[in-house]
């Protein structure tokens, strides 16, 4: 066979973390990172990075603009553990303390193409009202020790959070050799490699009465 079967498929993600909307806070910046399963490996690009600090816009939009570029390529043999992007947003509160303003995570889209996601962010909540008051006064808000906790399903039931704010991300997704593994991710207009066009059957002529089929 002339075409060699590939051993890995590649997933390339480019895009921007565009804007955010938050009610309180100013001078916001974020750290983003990617979390993926054991079968996945980053072969190119930054797996974690920090953004610039953005000030709220003066106009009626009241929006924070980062326009932060992301560019990363993964290789894998298995879709399980599909990469997720984790974004942790920090900012200054009313007393100029640097506090956590929100966490959010989402899977990289599984279909090639351009995707825009609006992600709601949330912050962990203090356990009691007294702790809430103390954290507001001292500026030490509850944070997750490991932000990658929000990319897992296990252990989430003990967390209490309050959702506030949203962030808009644009992804451009490209894949190489994904279909050659037999996977169909619903990419429109493309047939999987293994579903090669069927050759038309040879025409069969039935001999008419009185004729031989020689």
């Amino acid at each position, binding site marked *: 066979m002339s075409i060699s079967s590939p051993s890995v498929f590649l997933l390339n993600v480019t895009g921007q973390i565009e804007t955010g909307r938050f009610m309180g806070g100013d001078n916001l910046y974020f750290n983003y990172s990617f979390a993926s399963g054991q079968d996945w490996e980053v072969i190119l690009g930054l797996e974690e990075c920090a953004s610039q600090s953005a000030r709220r816009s003066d106009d009626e939009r009241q929006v924070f603009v980062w326009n932060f570029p992301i560019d990363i390529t993964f290789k894998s043999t298995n879709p399980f553990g599909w990469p*997720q992007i984790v974004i942790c947003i920090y900012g200054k509160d009313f007393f100029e303390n640097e506090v956590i303003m929100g966490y959010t995570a989402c*899977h990289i889209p*599984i279909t090639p193409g351009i995707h825009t996601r609006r992600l709601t962010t949330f912050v962990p909540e203090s356990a009691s009202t007294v702790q809430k008051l103390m954290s507001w006064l001292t500026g030490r808000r509850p944070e997750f020790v490991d932000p990658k906790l929000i990319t897992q*399903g296990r252990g989430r*039931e003990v967390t209490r959070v309050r959702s506030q704010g949203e962030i808009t991300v644009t992804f451009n997704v490209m894949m190489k050799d994904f279909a050659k593994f037999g996977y*169909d991710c*619903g990419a429109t207009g493309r047939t999987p490699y293994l579903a090669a066009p069927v050759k038309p059957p040879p025409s069969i002529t039935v001999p008419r009465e009185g004729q031989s089929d020689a």
Partner: protein
Amino acid sequence: MAEIHIIGQITGASGFPKASLFCKWILQLGGGWRVVEGLVEGQTQADQSEVSDTVSWCHPLDIHLATRGIQGWPRIMVQVYRQDDLSRIDLCGYGIIHIPTKAGHHTVTCHTWRPVGTFAEELRRAFLGGGPQLLSTEFIHSALERYRLLTVASGSVHFELGIILRNFEKYGVMC
């Protein structure tokens, strides 16, 4: 064996009374299905929104299933509860959705419902909480027993699901 990857999130819920809400989810499979990798049940974080009645759970789903047949296509059953400051929990709604059968990205909304009691029970629920709950989840996933229930609409749970299929075309199954 044909395989399915379910990669997505329980993003959140809307339409419920403003409270701290969380959701228990269970993946239900037919007999011919096998879980290769991933968690098949869990509980989301408890979230209360600052501004609107939309809560955000951001709970990842990553499940790898294998099957020999298309009967018993996987379904996700959800039970939404609210939690108050004293950590008492109260039922808000039940719901079930089938995993989409088509490959690609899907936004699925699960409309939930809750059982309705007598007038006295509903009045008590409005003031004190704690209305009727189902003893068995069979009433959620089985169509046969639903005729016994009187229910009222509750809010909606939102899913963003990415479905990757493998080898279904090889077996002649069109999805």
